[in-house]
C-alpha cells in the first residue's frame, strides 16, 4: 500500500520537500547539540527538563486520544467512527514516533539509550514508560495497517485483530498514566505530587487529541477527494468539549487544594505560573493565554449553533489544542521545577536551537503523518472509483 505515497500532485510533493527542508535544518542544530551537549538548550541545573520533555508529554496524550475513536466504534458499535478510525490510529503512530524522537533529543548520552534494555529496572517508571510506549506503537501499527489492507481488499478484518484492538483500550490509558507517574511519584516536587495528575493528563489528552483530529479531518476534506464526514466531525467535537471540561474541572480541584490548604510546596508553583514568584514570571502571560484559549474553546464548543458551524468549530479546536499545548507543555514541566528544591527561583525558557530541534521532530511527525494519510486517502479513492 505504501506505493500510494509515491504518486501525488505537485502540491503534495512541495509539502513533502518543505517538511524535508524543515527536518534537515533542525537536524543541523541537533548535530550541534550532539557536539556541544545539552548546554545549547535553556535547561539548567535547576530546570533539568524543558521543551523536549514537554512536547513528549503532550504528544503521548495525542497518541492516547485514538482510544476516543476505538471505544465508541468497537465497544459501543458507533459505526460512524469506522470511517475515520484509521486516521486516529495513524495520528497515534506519528505521535508515538515523535515521542521517541523527543526522548532521544533530550538524552545527554543518546547512544546509551539501549542501557534501559540492557539493565532493565522495574522500580524506575521510565522503564515502564518505554515498555508501554513501544507496545502502543506496535499495536497501532499492526491494527491500522491490517484493517486498512482488509478494507482495500473489501474483506472483513482478520479475526485475530479483535483481541489486540480490545487490548489497545487499556493500553492507551496506560501510556498516559505511566507518563504521569514519571512526575507524580517524586517526593520533592509539590506541583506534580498529586493523584489527579494522571486523570488530568488523560482528560487534557481527550480534548487536545480529538481537537487536532478535527482539524486534520477538515484539512483532508479540503485537499483530497475524501470527506471524513460531517457527523464524524460533530461527534468528535462533543468528545473535545467533554474532555476539555473534565480537564478544567481537575485543574480547579488542584487549584482549590493548593489555595485552600495554603501549603507552600503546592501553592508556590501555581503562584509562580500565574502571578510570578519573587519578581520572576516569564511564563505568566503564557499561562493566562492558555487559560483564555481553553475557556473560549469550551464556550464555543458548548453552544450548539457555534459548534455546528465548521469555521467556528475549527477556531474552537485550534484554541483548545494550543491552550492545552501551552498548559501541559511549558506550564506543567517548567512549573514543577520552579521554585527549585531549595526554594530558589531560576527560570527556564527554551533557546532558538532547542526550538529548531523540536520543530524538526514535529516535521518528522508531519512527514510520517502525511505519508500515512496519503496511503489512507489513496485506498479510499481507489474504493470509491
Amino acid at each position, binding site marked *: 500500500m505504501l506505493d500510494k505515497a509515491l504518486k501525488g500532485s505537485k502540491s503534495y510533493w512541495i509539502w513533502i520537500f518543505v517538511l524535508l527542508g524543515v527536518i534537515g535544518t533542525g537536524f543541523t542544530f541537533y548535530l550541534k547539540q550532539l557536539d556541544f551537549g545539552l548546554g545549547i538548550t535553556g535547561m539548567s541545573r535547576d530546570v533539568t527538563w524543558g521543551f523536549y520533555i514537554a512536547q513528549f508529554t503532550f504528544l503521548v496524550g495525542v497518541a492516547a486520544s485514538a482510544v476516543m475513536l476505538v471505544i465508541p466504534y468497537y465497544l459501543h458499535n458507533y459505526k460512524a467512527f469506522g470511517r475515520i478510525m484509521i486516521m486516529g490510529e495513524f495520528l497515534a503512530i506519528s505521535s508515538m514516533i515523535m515521542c521517541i524522537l523527543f526522548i532521544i533529543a533530550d*538524552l545527554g548520552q543518546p547512544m546509551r539509550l539501549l*542501557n534501559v534494555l540492557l539493565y532493565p529496572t522495574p522500580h*524506575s517508571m521510565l522503564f515502564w514508560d518505554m515498555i508501554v510506549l513501544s507496545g502502543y506503537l506496535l499495536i497501532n501499527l499492526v491494527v491500522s495497517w491490517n484493517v486498512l489492507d482488509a478494507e482495500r481488499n473489501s474483506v472483513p478484518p482478520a479475526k485475530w485483530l479483535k483481541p489486540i484492538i480490545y487490548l489497545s483500550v487499556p493500553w492507551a490509558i496506560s501510556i498516559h498514566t505511566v507518563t504521569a507517574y514519571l512526575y507524580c511519584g517524586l517526593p*520533592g516536587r509539590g506541583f506534580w505530587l498529586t493523584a489527579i495528575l494522571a486523570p488530568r493528563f488523560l482528560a487534557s489528552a481527550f480534548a487536545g487529541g480529538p481537537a487536532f483530529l478535527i482539524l486534520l479531518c477538515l484539512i483532508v476534506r479540503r485537499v483530497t477527494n475524501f470527506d471524513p464526514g460531517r457527523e464524524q466531525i460533530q461527534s468528535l467535537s462533543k468528545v473535545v468539549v467533554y474532555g476539555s471540561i473534565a480537564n478544567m474541572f481537575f485543574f480547579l480541584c488542584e487549584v482549590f487544594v493548593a489555595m485552600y490548604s495554603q501549603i507552600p510546596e503546592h501553592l508556590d508553583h501555581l503562584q509562580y505560573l500565574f502571578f510570578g514568584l519573587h519578581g520572576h514570571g516569564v511564563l505568566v502571560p503564557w499561562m493566562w493565554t492558555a487559560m483564555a484559549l481553553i475557556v473560549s474553546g469550551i464556550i464555543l464548543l458548548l453552544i450548539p449553533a457555534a459548534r455546528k458551524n465548521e469555521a467556528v468549530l475549527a477556531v474552537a479546536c485550534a484554541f483548545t489544542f494550543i491552550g492545552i499545548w501551552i498548559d501541559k507543555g511549558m506550564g506543567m514541566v517548567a512549573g514543577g521545577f520552579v521554585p527549585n528544591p531549595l526554594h*530558589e527561583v531560576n527560570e527556564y525558557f527554551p533557546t532558538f536551537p532547542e526550538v529548531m530541534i523540536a520543530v524538526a521532530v514535529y516535521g518528522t511527525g508531519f512527514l510520517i503523518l502525511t505519508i500515512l494519510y496519503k496511503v489512507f486517502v489513496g485506498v479510499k479513492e481507489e474504493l470509491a472509483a
Partner: protein
Amino acid sequence: MENNRRNFLKFAGVTVLGLGSLSLLDGLTSDDVIASAGQTSAEEIYKKGANALTAKRWGMVVDTRIITAAICRKMENACHQTHNVPDHANKRHEIKWIWDTEYKHAFPEKTDLFLAERFEHLPIPVFCNHCANPPCVQACPTQATFQRADGLVLMDFHRCIGCRFCMAACPYGSRSFNFRDPREAIKNENPEFPTRMKGVVEKCNFCAERLAVGKEPACVEASDGALIFGDLEDPQSEIRKLLKENYAIRRKQNLGTNPSVYYIV
C-alpha cells in the same frame, strides 16, 4: 577491563543490530564511546584496599556552631579539586558537589519569621544526603545510580544515559548534569579520580574512593572539625555520641527519604 570490553562489544552489537538511527549516532560521537569503554568502571574506582574504612551505614554530622564562610570555601575547594569538578562560567551549566547556602534554602520547610539571629546569614553546607531511601536510585532507569550496602549512593558515569530523571527525583537539588564538556573547565586535574564526559549526571560520593584507601572524605579533612564522618549504625562512633548529646535536624525529614546527614543547630 575484560568485563568492560565484553559489555562494550555486547552493547555495540545490540546497537548496530537494533536501531539504524542509533548506530548513526554512534558513528557521530564515536570518540565518546571509545573513551568511555577505555575508562575505569565504578567498581574499579571504588575497589576497597586492605586499609579501607568500612561502616554499616556511613553518615555525616555538620556542626553549624563551628561553620564559617571560610571553612565552607575550604571544603568546597577540597572537594571540587579532589573530584575534578569543572568551573563553568555559565551559571546554567554549573556543577557542584558541595556548596553553602542560607538556612532558608537549606531548610525551606523550617524557615521562620523570627529565626535565631545567628542563622539569618549563617552559611549551611549542603551536599548529597546519601538517603537510606533514595528517590534518585528508584528513578534511575539503568541502575547507573545505585546504593551500596554501606549506604553510599554512588554513580556509574559510564552507564548513565543522561535522562536526568534522578535530578527531578532528588528533593535536595544535590545533583548536577554535564550540559557541556567538563574537561575544558578543569584547572588542575587530579589524576587519582576520573573526569566525566558531557551528558552525564554527577554528585557527591562521600569520597568512596578515599574511604577505600583508608582516608576520610576530603571535605571532612578540610572542615576544621565542623564536619564529622562516621558509622550511624555503630553506637560507639563519634557521630552517634554527638547526636546523643546535641539536638540535630535533617533536611526535609517529612519526605521519608531518611537522609544520612545531620545538622547540629
